[in-house]
């Protein structure tokens, strides 16, 4: 073991990014490419009566105009409910209706504007509970007849239910009967956007022999192969997917969308290379966004403040198509209580179709959303019990020996130490649990939230790593992980450097992914890179070490058990002065007498998730992830009691990361998540007008937080190792966001005295709570 683990190491690609050299999908040369452009629906729900392409074809340079009538296949990662291009009906404003392929971009744009689509508007529905009412417009006639790509998805006939999951544990009725205090709260969280700074982009070309090359800004290159193959009956081996740097994903670039469309476009122009360019506005309205949620949360506790029962109902707004929504509903159910011990639990989690833009994974995979509901209710309960909210959480914090909502036995390894996080959060956040007046109309207040998260991946997801040497003894690390900002490839390099005891600068990382070259990594999602690819890299490192030892033993004439690989050299522990430098042995060893010894060292490691299961449909019993990550967060606000405006003073996170592999980089990632949470909770929302059209369809009106409004960020770690994970690390990439909306709402609820159960928390929403307007 070397010294690369546990140190602050700069990103391997730092200078590429600081010089503009880092290439993203649409930065690649496009000479020789045709340009494709989308036409999208201006209606939330409408029949397509007719599409007239004549005028579009009149534009010089137009090669193809493609509509839903040209494509029969449906797609969907869990449920095949989505047409690549709307056919007969559009189900959300922004849905792709046609593609134009033209010689250049101006022609493609002009032609798209000339396609005449005749619509007949249909009644639409915009919230999940409204979508479940009798007589609500149905988005899909027979959702249960769509092809299911996984076992555990349960679309319901004659309804807008794309899937449903239930958790039954203990006896909720008995638990409530034993409760001294019961609180029930209702929540509404609107959809919002990932808003990665890079707009999604994809290119496709098909060679004469049927080989397909897709270049895309994707978190899931290997999933692109599978889904494209599924949709268009192309053998998987004929599809090559290339992913250069990705300009932020946050889950939004995990689904497959533009890749399909680019393929369709290319296939209609004889396989010529096609560059599909979408606008920011289309990226927001057409491509999938963050889920919305309605929820009711009922919690009961005894007179000592111990939770006795929970009854939780979640209605996840997945928009017009299922995408990964059902699994977000499942994930939400699996961890629905938050990190608290609740022995008597009843939870129904429904994934509901509406005429919103469809939803997909978003940083936290539904955890930030249910956490908001649970943590707000916890605060209301603490308030009524007159217990300090932080203390209340300590009383109820889930601990080893308890079981998860899906009845997994929890131990220090798979759970971590929430109480330690809460205890550390107290001084870090300056927690005093009180509202402190600043002047006659300003107060300061804090809010706290716990978090936990586990991944929800296919039970057999895989990862792989390959290692080669350069002539100077430095190494190349090759995985299928996408670099989109989380720095996980640098962490993998640290693992390799540490394992081989070489300087971190001796590790070169292949940043782009090419599925012809890089071993499969399931998807760069769920913060599972460290665990899955980390294990693969460890194994590859062990593999290459064993080869070096074999060659070393032969070269040095000793047993391979005596061989040490350290500090860039190979030697026998019996004669440490006789060192062979890595560069002299990595490609086989040339002995002083000129003879060849050994073989070139090539490391390979593979990893597959083990021991996971689907959830029992009746009780939810089962295990979907190897472990949890727990943490605690606090937000402090300064609130103007007259104007209802506020400033966020500080935001603190303590998170159990298992082992602090790269302290600075990890703080940066956590802070980034916190910032995203603050922005989302304070100003971001997809709001829709009465016609179901986005009212904030551009970055001009959809606001993200700019510099200068950010709080003082404070991050500390707890280290409870996770067995079976490299160096004991726990997942921590998405997590900074999870408890922040809840902590902010708790802080503002404390400051204002209002019970704030919706997002975003704008001054106007607080003013409304104050009775400012009768509606």
């Amino acid at each position, binding site marked *: 073991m070397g010294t690369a683990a546990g140190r602050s190491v700069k990103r391997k690609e730092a200078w590429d990014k600081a010089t503009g050299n880092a290439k993203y999908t649409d930065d690649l040369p496009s000479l020789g490419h045709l340009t494709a452009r989308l036409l999208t629906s201006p209606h939330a729900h409408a029949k397509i009566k007719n599409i007239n392409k004549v005028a579009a074809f009149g534009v010089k340079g137009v090669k193809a105009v493609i509509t839903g009538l040209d494509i029969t296949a449906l797609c969907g990662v869990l449920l095949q409910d989505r047409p690549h291009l709307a056919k007969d009906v559009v189900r959300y404003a922004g849905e792709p209706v046609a593609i134009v392929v033209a010689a250049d971009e101006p022609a493609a744009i002009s032609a798209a504007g000339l396609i005449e689509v005749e619509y007949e508007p249909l009644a639409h529905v915009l919230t999940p509970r409204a979508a479940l009412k009798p007589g609500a417009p149905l988005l899909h006639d027979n959702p249960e007849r769509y092809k299911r790509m996984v076992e555990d998805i349960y679309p319901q006939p004659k309804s807008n239910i794309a899937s449903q999951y239930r958790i039954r544990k203990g006896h909720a009725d008995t638990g409530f009967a034993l409760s001294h205090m019961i609180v029930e709260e209702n929540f509404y969280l609107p959809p919002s956007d990932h808003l990665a700074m890079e707009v999604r982009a994809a290119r496709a070309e098909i060679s004469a022999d049927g080989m397909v090359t897709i270049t895309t800004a994707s978190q899931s290159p290997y999933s692109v192969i599978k889904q494209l193959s599924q949709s268009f009956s192309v053998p998987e081996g004929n599809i090559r997917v290339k992913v250069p740097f990705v300009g932020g994903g946050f889950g939004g670039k995990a689904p497959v969308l533009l890749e399909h469309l680019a393929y369709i476009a290319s296939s209609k122009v004889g396989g010529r290379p096609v560059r599909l360019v979408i606008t920011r506005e289309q990226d927001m309205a057409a491509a999938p966004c963050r889920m919305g949620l309605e929820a009711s949360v009922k919690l009961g506790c005894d007179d000592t403040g111990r939770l006795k029962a929970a009854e939780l109902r979640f209605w996840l707004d997945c928009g017009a198509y299922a995408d990964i929504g059902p699994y977000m509903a499942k994930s939400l159910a699996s961890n629905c209580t938050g990190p608290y011990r609740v022995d008597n639990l009843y939870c129904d989690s429904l994934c509901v179709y509406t005429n919103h833009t469809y939803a997909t994974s978003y940083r936290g995979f539904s955890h930030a959303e249910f956490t908001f509901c649970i943590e707000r209710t916890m605060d209301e309960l603490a308030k009524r019990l007159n217990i300090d909210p932080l203390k209340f959480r300590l009383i109820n914090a889930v601990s080893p020996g308890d079981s998860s909502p899906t009845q997994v036995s929890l131990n220090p390894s798979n759970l971590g130490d929430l109480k330690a996080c809460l205890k550390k959060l107290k001084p870090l956040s300056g927690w005093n649990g009180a509202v402190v007046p600043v002047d006659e109309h300003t107060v300061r207040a804090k809010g706290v939230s716990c978090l936990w998260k586990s991944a929800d991946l296919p039970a057999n997801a895989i990862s792989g790593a390959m290692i080669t040497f350069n002539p100077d003894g430095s190494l190349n690390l090759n995985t299928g992980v996408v670099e989109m900002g989380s720095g996980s490839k640098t962490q993998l390099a640290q693992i390799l450097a540490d394992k081989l005891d070489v300087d971190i600068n001796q590790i070169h990382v292949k940043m782009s992914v090419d599925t012809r070259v890089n071993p499969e990594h399931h998807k760069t999602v769920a913060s599972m890179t460290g665990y899955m690819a980390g294990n693969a890299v460890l194994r590859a490192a062990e593999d290459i070490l064993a080869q070096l030892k074999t060659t070393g033993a032969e070269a040095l004439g000793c047993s391979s058990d005596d061989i040490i690989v350290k500090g860039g050299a190979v030697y026998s522990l019996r004669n440490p002065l006789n060192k062979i430098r890595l560069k002299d042995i990595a490609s086989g060893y040339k002995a002083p007498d000129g003879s060849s010894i050994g073989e070139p060292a090539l490391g390979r490691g593979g990893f597959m998730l083990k021991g996971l299961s689907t959830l029992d449909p009746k009780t939810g019993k089962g295990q979907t992830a190897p472990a949890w990550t727990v943490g605690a967060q606090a937000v402090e606000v300064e609130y103007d009691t007259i104007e209802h405006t506020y400033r966020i003073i500080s935001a603190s996170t303590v998170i159990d990361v298992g082992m602090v592999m790269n302290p600075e980089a990890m703080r940066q990632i956590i802070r980034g998540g916190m910032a995203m949470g603050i922005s989302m909770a304070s*100003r971001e929302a997809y709001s829709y007008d009465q016609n179901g059209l986005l009212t904030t369809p551009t970055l001009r009106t959809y606001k993200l937080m700019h510099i200068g*409004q950010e709080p003082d960020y404070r991050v500390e770690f707890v280290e409870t190792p996770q067995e079976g994970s490299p160096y004991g690390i726990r997942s921590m990439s998405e997590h900074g966001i999870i408890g922040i909306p809840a902590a902010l709402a708790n802080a503002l609820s404390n400051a204002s005295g209002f019970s704030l159960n919706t997002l975003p928390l704008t001054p106007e929403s607080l003013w409304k709570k104050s009775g400012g*307007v009768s509606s």
Partner: protein
Amino acid sequence: MIASDFIYCRPDTLKEAATVYAKLAGEGKSPVYYGGGSEIITMSRAGSIAPGAVIDLKSIPECKVLEQNGAALMIGGAVTLRSIRESKLFPLLGAAAGRIADHTNQCRITLGGNLCGTIRYREASLPLMLTDAEVVLYGSGGERKASMLTIFRERMRLLPGEFICGVNIDARYLYAPFMHIKKTANEKIDYPLVNVSAIIIDGRIRAAFSGLCAFPFRSMEIEAVLNDKTASISSRIDKAADLLPAPALADAEGLSQYRIFVLKNTLCNVLERLRHDFK
């Protein structure tokens, strides 16, 4: 990318600009005068306008003037918001300019562009209305001068083919005590919920507003109420809020009642902060 094509002209003189405008208009090119370009480019990209020609005013010396010449400060129509702010020659206008869009865009957006744009806020009009600036216009009939209060009614009332050559502001007003407050929904870089510009001249407050209604305005009725020293501040503000020239806006930034609420708080703030100058 802008799909449509247009002709780009950059005249060197006022006369050339007016002449080429008339010529292009006569050819059916529907030309537009072009300052910083932000609005024309974004709207052309979105396809909401498709001018056949743009006439860039940035090479015309008169449109680039920024200097105080005795009794008046002259600001050319093609002077950028950044230059106005950095010159510190008219701090109230500088303050208003400094809250339009963002700093980088202020390096491009021109005074004339902000005043004549289609985006309804036109914040730069507020200080000019408060100081009743003289607006110098140029068109096919040559130069024309008009007072800001007569030519800016909800928007600039220009004749076809006319553009803003510049504005002249009475030097006596330049450093008068002022406040400019822009209130947004929650994000600083955003369109306004309410913009309030106020200046104290001869012991009386003048106030102008944008974001509140569908157009920027200065109201003498509101000023009369605000200057009524016999009434309490809160009753003056309540009365002022009842005198809006049009209904308060209701849009993605905020409900109309909320805008009124924000207006009242902001006016209260303004009156409080200016109270030492406003006797």
